[in-house]
């Protein structure tokens, strides 16, 4: 358990990891070193959800300046509702449920891009308008009720093999695949080229639209997967399950070292930022501060971290 944590923290150096490590140590020093393991495993489990949804957001943000997906919290919620309805708590329907959830995400992502391309809308507005529509679908499908997950899904999200949690390991796998995709695959190279200069990418023969369509579809799919797993982890699909992920999905990407100007992505950095976020919440909780002070410190820390992280990409573009 601890060795995994140490390996993660000493992996590619990144401010998120360092900040997360500091939070971890400070909290442990404050509350006693007895529960460092429990603290880290909780941060890994919650962090895994932030990483999944953040990885999708990263692909969209990297596809060019102004690209962002504000619909992720409601794609997450809608996919959770649809898949819980399909599975109606039956274990043998878990796989079909997963595929339905992923399909919902892919379609939602495609719709986002179609609105951006066909109506020539800024992505912020197009994905915001779609998120209203997805929200209405979720209202009508689930209403106020919490739809319960099948037992096998809940089991998967909390199960350990030899003390190691399965789900965060799977998400680390997703991060590694994304990293390889960005560095080695044709799609990855095209995505970053499109993000750096859409015109240059287009002139060199890249199907710019297809690349961005795929980025939005992957983002929707990963948001949907987050919703599917999160409803297993938290006991069901609920209307407010996506609330915190709108801001968090953006924050972990930017704090993880991806430039909002596009054309550059850092998949591993998202883990650092996600651990930082969750360990910061744990730390502020351990200090028994009142809610308002906690929120203010969260804001100050976000601004502080983003101010000290060196920003290579932005300096290049100036």
């Amino acid at each position, binding site marked *: 358990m601890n060795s995994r944590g140490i390996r993660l923290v000493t992996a590619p150096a990144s401010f998120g990891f360092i900040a997360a490590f500091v939070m971890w140590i400070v909290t442990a020093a404050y509350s006693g070193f007895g529960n460092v393991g429990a603290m880290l495993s909780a941060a890994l489990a919650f962090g895994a959800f932030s990483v999944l949804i953040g990885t999708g957001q990263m692909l969209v943000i990297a596809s060019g300046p*102004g690209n962002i997906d504000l619909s992720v919290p409601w794609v997450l919620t809608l996919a959770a509702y649809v898949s819980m309805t399909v599975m109606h708590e039956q274990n043998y329907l878990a796989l079909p449920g997963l595929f339905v959830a992923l399909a919902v995400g892919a379609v939602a992502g495609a719709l986002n891009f179609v609105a951006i391309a066909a109506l020539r809308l*800024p992505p912020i507005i197009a994905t915001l308008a779609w998120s209203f529509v997805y929200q209405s679908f979720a209202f009508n499908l689930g209403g106020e009720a919490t739809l319960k997950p099948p037992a096998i899904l809940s089991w998967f999200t909390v199960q350990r093999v030899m003390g190691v949690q399965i789900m965060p390991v799977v998400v680390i796998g997703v991060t590694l695949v994304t990293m390889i995709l960005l560095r080695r695959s044709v799609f990855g190279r095209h995505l970053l080229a499109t993000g750096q200069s859409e015109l240059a990418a287009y002139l060199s023969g890249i199907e710019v639209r297809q690349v961005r369509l795929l980025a939005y579809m992957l983002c929707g799919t990963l948001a949907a997967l987050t919703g599917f797993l999160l409803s297993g982890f938290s006991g069901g699909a609920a209307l407010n399950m996506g609330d915190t992920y709108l801001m968090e999905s953006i924050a972990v990407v930017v704090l993880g070292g991806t430039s909002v100007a596009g054309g550059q992505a850092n998949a591993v950095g998202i883990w650092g930022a996600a651990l930082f976020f969750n360990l910061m919440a744990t730390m502020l909780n351990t200090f028994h501060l009142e809610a308002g002070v906690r929120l203010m410190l969260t804001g100050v820390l976000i601004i502080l971290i*983003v101010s000290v992280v060196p920003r290579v990409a932005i300096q290049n573009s100036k």
Partner: protein
Amino acid sequence: MSEPATASYSAVRRSWLRDTSQVSLPVAALLMMLAIIFWIRPSAFSYFGFTLLFKLATPLVFASLSQMLIIMLGDIDLSNGSFVGLINCVTVLYLGDWPIVAILIYLATIAVYAGFGLLIYQRQLPSIIVTLGMSFIWLGAAIILLPSPGGSAPEWLSNLMSWRSPLVPLPIWIAVLAAAAGHLVITRSSYGPVLRGAGANPRAVERAGWSLLGIRLAVYSAAGFLAAVSGLLLTGITTSGDPNIAPAYTLLGVGAVILGGGSFKGGVVSPIGTVAGALTLSLAGSLLSFLQVPPTWQIGSQGIILFLVLAGRVLISERES
């Protein structure tokens, strides 16, 4: 100084021409929605009907204008809604009994707001993440001041907001005056091109001898001031305080700016369009309840309305080209 002067003159001409087609879209959408509402319920076509329809739009108009100034600089403000919430809490707590304290807090928050604008510029930080952090700070400060919703607005403020103004209802007066003032400063005045240029082509503005630092400080302060006005007016309408009163203003404001012909590239904004956009967005909710859209589909229908209105933009730009 003569060269930039001629350049800015032609910029004024072009922006004035462009402004008419930008503004026509949200105004047309607004008129169409009003026509549908009055067709369904003719009795709403009255002084009282207009007051009810546009009452809640007034604070959104100012929040949208505040957002417009930030978008004009090429930034975005994700903290707008929680800033309005903080002003709302400060107002119910202090403005009635200790007006001096309230005014000092307003000035201090606007100064902090402008300070963050300065930080974004000097460290070349992405505004989206800094303002996200700021939104936590405003919300946290509001919750420290007012842990649970409550309190009451000073009487004069709620009386002001329910004042029966001559000719047309107060919300219409405020919207028209705000749009006119914005138009004069941002679109028509000689400072307009400099302010918009600070977002569109900062280097050119700097070379023309202007201090970008000064411009950005002034614009961020003005944006903070407008958001504070929004919070004051909102308090006058709701008459009580709640830190979480206006989180929706952030994205609705962004929507109003874009609906009004603004662009995230910076430098392209229209105050009249923004005001019309804010009125359109807040009227969309009333329209849907007049059409008896079930509550669960209302938010989705608002999304569809947003798409329908913005689809008009494609038609306009195709006709122009």
